[in-house]
């Protein structure tokens, strides 16, 4: 049996986002169990543990579940990820933070047990700028770009990257922090209205997203010049603003089509059997698909681990090997019933974070869904890689880690 815990937050301030994510994650694993009898013939035992997005509860969950032989942890919260990095490293259990968590964990030589496939926040910043470059025909000279961000570690992540890129492309960066929780953003949006930035990028979370989008609509900011990070781009964020939000863009690293073949299987093996997680009403939403994608990466890693070690009953250490050997291509996606679903990912001991590919999606209010409007764009690794190197080495030094692969 493969014990895979899932730290969910189906309650608390971010429950609206936590529910679809957790559902997608759970449904995929259930599907594998029902359809394939697990992974490599070994059934999956998934256990949810509710964190409410609260760090201490996360720690409690971790301690409770690690004792039961957890193979890998998805903390689903940056705060919890930071908690688990040292703990899981000491315990030898992989931690996978999908598009959140500590960016420099991409450096596998320092963070031996931590993975952040398929992309990180610095990738996100770079992808957004690349997209803007495309829109502007290749030059951002003299342009003004505003960053509206959650005033926390998470929100501050892209600043360095955006500054570096600004120096490179010659745009001016305007920083507009929004304090938690972000229900009042009048000041920030009045400033945007005055400064008229050509583009606005948003690093938001929770209620901040909804308010920002509503305010943007109120000041009639051109929505297609407003780009959110992937955590600011779910149906939850745009729906309260109604029609006005039409055209809002957000980054993504997974597909959001409504006709993947896998849906038939999910219907047949999961929903119809009454095994759907939660209320079963989230299938196909952006966050559901992200949860599903996370499960997909994890199970692929486990498959790899089984291949490498020739046993179906893998251990956490083997799963890490599987993660490092992760190699997901377009064929893989297609074979899983999700053609074109995500970018190619190829891991290694050094690279725990994938190739940094992401796409831009856009909200279509009348149809009520996001659609991808670009192909997967590659982040500017020349800029990002040195930053990652510097940050991870600082961490290594602080904690007495000798970087390297064992």
């Amino acid at each position, binding site marked *: 049996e493969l014990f895979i815990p899932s730290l*969910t937050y*189906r*309650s*608390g301030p971010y*429950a609206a986002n936590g*529910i679809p994510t957790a559902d997608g994650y759970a449904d995929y694993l259930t599907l594998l169990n029902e359809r394939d009898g697990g992974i490599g013939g070994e059934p999956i035992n998934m256990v*949810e*543990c*509710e964190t*409410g997005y609260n*760090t*201490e*509860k996360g*720690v*409690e969950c*971790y*301690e*409770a579940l*690690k*004792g039961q032989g957890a193979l890998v942890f998805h903390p689903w919260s*940056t*705060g919890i990820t*930071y*908690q688990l*990095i*040292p*703990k899981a*490293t*000491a315990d030898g259990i992989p931690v996978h933070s999908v598009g959140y968590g*500590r*960016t*420099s964990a991409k450096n596998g030589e320092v963070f031996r047990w931590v993975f952040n496939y398929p992309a990180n926040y610095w990738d996100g910043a770079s992808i957004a700028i690349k997209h803007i470059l495309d829109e502007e025909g290749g030059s951002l000279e003299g342009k003004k770009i505003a960053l509206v961000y959650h*005033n*926390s*570690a998470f929100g*501050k*992540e892209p600043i*360095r990257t955006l500054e570096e890129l600004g120096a490179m492309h010659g745009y001016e960066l305007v920083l507009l922090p929004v*304090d*938690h929780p972000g229900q009042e953003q009048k000041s920030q949006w009045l400033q945007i209205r005055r400064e008229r930035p050509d583009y606005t990028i948003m690093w938001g979370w929770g209620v901040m997203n909804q308010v920002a989008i509503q305010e943007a609509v109120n000041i009639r900011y051109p929505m297609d010049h407003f780009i959110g990070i992937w955590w600011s781009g779910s149906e939850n964020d745009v729906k309260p603003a109604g029609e006005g939000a039409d055209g809002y863009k957000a980054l993504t690293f997974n597909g959001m089509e409504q006709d993947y073949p896998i849906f038939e299987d999910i219907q047949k093996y999961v929903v119809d059997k009454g095994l759907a997680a*939660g209320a079963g009403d989230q299938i196909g939403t952006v966050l559901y698909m992200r949860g599903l994608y996370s499960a997909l990466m994890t199970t692929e890693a486990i498959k790899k681990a089984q291949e490498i070690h020739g046993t179906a009953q893998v251990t956490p250490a083997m799963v890490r090997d599987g993660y490092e050997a992760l190699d997901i291509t377009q064929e893989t996606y297609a074979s899983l019933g999700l053609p074109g679903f995500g970018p190619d990912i190829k891991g290694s001991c050094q690279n725990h974070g994938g190739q940094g590919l992401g796409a831009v999606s856009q909200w279509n209010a009348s149809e009520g869904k996001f659609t991808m409007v670009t192909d997967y764009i590659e982040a500017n690794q020349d800029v990002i890689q040195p*930053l990652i190197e*510097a*940050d991870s080495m*600082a*961490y290594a030094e*602080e*904690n*007495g880690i000798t970087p390297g692969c064992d």
Partner: protein
Amino acid sequence: MFYREAGDFKTSYVDDNQTFPIKFDRYRYYAVLAVAFGVVPFFINDYWANAVLLPFLIYAIAAIGLNILVGYCGQVSLGTGGFMAVGAYATYKLMTAFPDINIFFHIILAGGVTAIVGVLFGLPSLRIKGFYLAVATLAAQFFLVWLFNRVPWFYNYSASGQINAPERTVFGQAVTGPATEAWATYLFCLVFTVGCAILARNLTRGTVGRKWMSIRDMDIAAEIIGVNPLTAKMTAFAVSSFFIGIAGALFFAVYLGAVEVGEVYGINKSFLVLFMIIIGGLGSIFGSFAGAAFLVLLPVLLKNLLVGTMGWPTDLAAHFELMIVGALIIVFLIAEPHGLAQLWRVTKEKLRLWPFPH
């Protein structure tokens, strides 16, 4: 007669001033200490340490601290989270600036730093009272969190804005960092908790404590009979913040190891610690422990019961958990407004009279 004090005579005022004047209580107290120091470390595992005992011990310190301010001195404060953050960041700066000094002293010093900050934010209490003061202390909460988030010097300019506790040892045994053993962190915190409890007890049974309580019960009368409100309130803020600072330091360094200020030391923490002392009992050290135990254990218990034993879906369980905690708080207050400590006292009084009802 389960509970007897008859025949337990005191012949000196020293005896009468003891913490546990009743023999039975005293022995029970020694027994608890013996188990805590001598037995628990041999049976503790990561789960018990990290999910239950460490938070309990650390919250108990914070609760004692807040209880001194609210329960003994009557100054309601909602700045606990912010002050804990001061303790945490002070330890972090000290740990990284003076790596050769024992962490033990860093934590005490961090308490000292918090005490100073506490006094600073306590000054308005000379003018502002009651709930006005409570809300005013939120200024400290929000400002401090903003400050630690804002000024990179506090987090040593790390890219993530988080602080991470590097490994530090006591007697060669790691108590912070990833490579700690459950028993070591437990004992480390236990020493602080017991130490703080004893200090708090000493302070509250003597002149200082009486000054605090007189200010709490009737500040004008207290001033007229000779209590200087400035020193009384400021010492309460200082001592209280000292303990809270220590709690914040341990919370960061020993328990969590990595912290982002807004998330861990947010306003919820302030409320949580306040709940602990109200549920436990204002103006009671035992109550601080009881309240901390209640609010640390209850959610864990409920979760294990509802999800683990009864197999409910996690989200339903989480909602019910909230409802049950809320309802229990209310039920407790209705049954005994003065907290678990008072409940315990009444029970003792009843036991003393047992089998007679009055």
